[in-house]
C-alpha cells in the first residue's frame, strides 16, 4: 500500500478520496488552488499544499504543479479524482516517470482506451454491440456527408476526445450536418485540443445505462451492476439510479456479464465504467469507457457495500481485488441527486456565493457527499457541483419516498440550486414509471417541466 497520497482535486471528490485514505490508513495531502484555501477538504486534510492560483490551468490542470507538489510533500501516489487531469494519459505517464503512481489504470492501459473510436472497435471485437457509426474519423465535409447518408439520419456528431457534451450535436439533415460540423470542430479543439470527430446513428428515446467494473492487475475482474443515468440535461447527468428500470433482471445480468468479460479480455485494469445506450426495444450499444472514478459512484457503493475509491487505490497499489463476483450482492434500489449551484429557472446558469446556512439530510438510507459548510464561499471558477444526495431503499418506491423527504430536509441557503428540478422529477409520471429517456428534460424544456410539477 502507498505511504502518502496527493489528492489532486477539489470539492466533494477531494473529501471523498480523503475519507478513503483514512479508512486505508494512508496519509493524504490535499493540493489546492488559492480559491480553495478555505475549502473543507483543505481544512480536514492531514496536510494541504497550495499549487497555484484560482485559474485551473495553473493549478488543478497543471501537471508540473501537481507533480512538484507530490514530490515536495513526499507522496508516492497521485489521485486525480474526476475531471481535471483524471483522463489525461500523458499526465499519468509523467506521474510514472517521476516514480509516483497514478491512481487509475496504468499509462499503457489508458493509452489503449484513449480513443473512443478505437475503444469501440476494440471492445466490439470482444463481443460488445456498438452503434452503427462512421468508419473512423471524419476526414472532411464530403466524407461526413457520405458516412451520414450510409448510417442514416439523424446522426450524432461526437468528438474523439473528452466528454461532457462538448463538441457533440445531433443533426437531422445534410444541411444541419454541414453547419454543425464546424461548430463541433471548434468546440472540440478549444475544449480538448483535438478536433477529430466521428458519427454515430442517433437513437431516438434512448436510455443511458452504464456498468461499473473493477479489474485488478492479475486479470481478476468483477462487475458491480449497472446505473441508469438517463436523466440528463444537454448530455449532463443530473440524477442517477440503480438498478435501471429499463431492463429486466435477466437483461441486466446479460449486459453486466458481457461488459466485464469484454474489458477483462481487452486487458483493462482498475475501476472503470462502460457506458451504453439502450433503445426502446431493450437492445444495448456500447458507447465509451470512463477510466476513472465517476461522480455517481456512490449509487453503486450503497447497493453493494463496496468502497469503490478504496478499491481503486488498492488496485493501483498492486493489491489483488480480494473479492469475487459471487461476493458482489446488489441490494435494494438507490438514487443519486446531483445538487448543483445553478438556476433551473434561468437556463441552469451556474452561480457562486456564500453558503449562509447548510443542513445535510439524514435518516435511514440517506447519504450526503458534500464539501459545503455554513459560511463557505463557493468560488465561481469551477464546476457547479455542491454535493450529491443519495437515497437508498429496499425497492425503488421506498428510495423515491426517502429521496423526496431528504430533498425537503436539505438546506442550502445563499445560493440558487437545482433542488427544484429534482423535486419536479419525483413528481413526474414518466420518471415515476421508470420510463425516462435522455431527452426527457430537453424535449419539453426545464421551465415547462418545473411549471408542470408546480401544478400537480
Amino acid at each position, binding site marked *: 500500500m502507498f505511504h502518502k497520497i496527493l489528492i489532486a482535486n477539489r470539492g466533494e471528490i477531494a473529501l471523498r478520496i480523503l475519507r478513503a485514505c483514512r479508512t486505508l490508513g494512508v496519509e493524504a495531502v490535499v493540493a489546492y488552488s488559492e480559491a480553495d484555501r478555505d475549502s473543507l477538504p483543505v481544512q480536514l486534510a492531514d496536510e494541504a499544499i497550495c499549487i497555484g492560483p484560482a485559474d485551473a*490551468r495553473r493549478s488543478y490542470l497543471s501537471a508540473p504543479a501537481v507533480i512538484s507538489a507530490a514530490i515536495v510533500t513526499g507522496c508516492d501516489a497521485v489521485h486525480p479524482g474526476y475531471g481535471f487531469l483524471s483522463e489525461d494519459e500523458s499526465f499519468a505517464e509523467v506521474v510514472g516517470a517521476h516514480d509516483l503512481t497514478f491512481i487509475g489504470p496504468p499509462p499503457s492501459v489508458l493509452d489503449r482506451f484513449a480513443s473512443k473510436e478505437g475503444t469501440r472497435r476494440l471492445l466490439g471485437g470482444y463481443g460488445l454491440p456498438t452503434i452503427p457509426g462512421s468508419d473512423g474519423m471524419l476526414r472532411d465535409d464530403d466524407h461526413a456527408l457520405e458516412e451520414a447518408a450510409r448510417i442514416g439520419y439523424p446522426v450524432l456528431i461526437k468528438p474523439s476526445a473528452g466528454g461532457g457534451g462538448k463538441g457533440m450535436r445531433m443533426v437531422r439533415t445534410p444541411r444541419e450536418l454541414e453547419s454543425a460540423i464546424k461548430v463541433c470542430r471548434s468546440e472540440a479543439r*478549444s475544449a480538448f485540443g483535438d478536433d477529430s470527430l466521428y458519427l454515430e446513428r442517433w437513437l431516438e428515446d434512448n436510455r443511458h445505462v452504464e456498468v461499473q467494473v473493477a479489474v485488478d492487475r492479475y486479470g481478476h475482474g468483477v462487475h458491480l451492476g449497472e446505473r441508469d443515468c438517463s436523466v440528463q440535461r444537454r448530455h449532463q447527468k443530473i440524477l442517477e439510479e440503480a438498478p435501471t428500470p429499463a431492463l429486466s433482471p435477466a437483461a441486466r445480468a446479460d449486459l453486466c456479464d458481457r461488459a466485464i468479460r469484454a474489458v477483462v479480455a481487452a486487458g483493462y485494469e482498475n475501476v472503470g465504467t462502460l457506458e451504453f445506450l439502450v433503445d426502446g426495444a431493450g437492445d444495448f450499444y456500447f458507447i465509451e469507457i470512463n477510466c476513472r472514478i465517476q461522480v455517481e459512484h456512490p449509487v453503486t457503493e450503497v447497493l453493494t457495500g463496496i468502497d469503490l475509491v478504496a478499491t481503486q487505490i488498492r488496485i493501483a497499489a498492486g493489491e489483488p481485488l480480494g473479492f469475487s463476483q459471487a461476493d458482489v450482492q446488489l441490494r435494494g434500489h438507490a438514487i443519486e441527486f446531483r445538487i448543483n449551484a445553478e438556476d433551473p429557472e434561468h437556463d441552469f446558469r451556474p452561480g457562486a456565493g*456564500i453558503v449562509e446556512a447548510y443542513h445535510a439530510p439524514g435518516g435511514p438510507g440517506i447519504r450526503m457527499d458534500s464539501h459545503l459548510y455554513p459560511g463557505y464561499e463557493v468560488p465561481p471558477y469551477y464546476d457547479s457541483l455542491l454535493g450529491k444526495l443519495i437515497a437508498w431503499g429496499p425497492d425503488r418506491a421506498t428510495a423515491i419516498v426517502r429521496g423526496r423527504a431528504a430533498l425537503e430536509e436539505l438546506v442550502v441557503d445563499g445560493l440558487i440550486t437545482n433542488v427544484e428540478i429534482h423535486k419536479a422529477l419525483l413528481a413526474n409520471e414518466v420518471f415515476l414509471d421508470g420510463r425516462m429517456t435522455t431527452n426527457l428534460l430537453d424535449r419539453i424544456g426545464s421551465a415547462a417541466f418545473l411549471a408542470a410539477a408546480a401544478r400537480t
Partner: protein
Amino acid sequence: MPDDRDAARAAARDDAPRDDAARPDAVRDDAARAADHAGIDRLAASLVPALIAKIGTLNVGELEVREGEWKVRLRRPAGSGTGPTYGRRATDRPSRTQPGHEQHGHAPASPEPHRTPRAIHSPGGAHAPAGAPSTNGSGGPALAPVGPGRDGDAHRSGASGGHVAGGHAGGASSQIATSPAVGVFHPGPKAVGGTRVRVGDRLGAVDMLGVPQEVVAPVDGIVVGVIVEGGTAVEYGQELIHLEPATAVEGR
C-alpha cells in the same frame, strides 16, 4: 462576528449575481470563450504595454481605450503620488479570475499568511514600463512578474495576483516577494539583507520539476531578510523575501 467581516460578505454577495449575469462564460459556448481568450491575449500583448508607456508620460490617474467591443482601462492607485501601479485588470471585460479573488481576499474563515500584495510599484513612471515586462520573459505586459510560464498566459492569472500595495493604509510599508510556484526555493545573490533592488529584479527561483520559476522583487527597495531558507520546499504564494520599499526608505 466582527462587523467588517459581515460587510465584506455583503459586498461580495451583492457583486456575485450581477457579475454572474454579466459573465459571458456562463451561457456561451467554448468557441466564443476561446475567441475571447484570443482577444484578451492580443490586447495584453499589443495594446496594454503601449498604454503603460503612455500613462507614464501623462499626468492623469486613469486611461481608457476602446477597441472594437473591448475596453481597456489603466488606473493609478488612489493616493499614490509615486507613480503608476499596474493593475489588477487588463480589460473591463468580466473575467473569471477577477471578482472572486477580491472576495477571497476578504474571506473570513482563515488567516492568510501568504496572501501578500504583489504589487508592481515603481517610483519613476518612466522606467517601469520597460523594466517590468523584461522580467516576464513571455513578452507580456507588466501584469505578471512571476508565474510558471508554462503556457505563456501567465498574465491573465498574474493580473489577479497583482494586488495594490497595502503599504499606504497603515504606515506599515514592508513588502514580500512570494513564491510563483510549488517547488524548492533557491535564493539568488541579491537575496541578502541590505541589498538595494529594483522592481522586477530576480531575487531567487523556485525549482518546479527542474524548471526554475523566478522570484522577483515586487517593489523598488531594500532586502530586509529572507524568510525561507534555501533548499526548502515551498507552496505557491508562500512568503519568501521581506523587502522595505524605496518610498518608505526615502521617507525616513
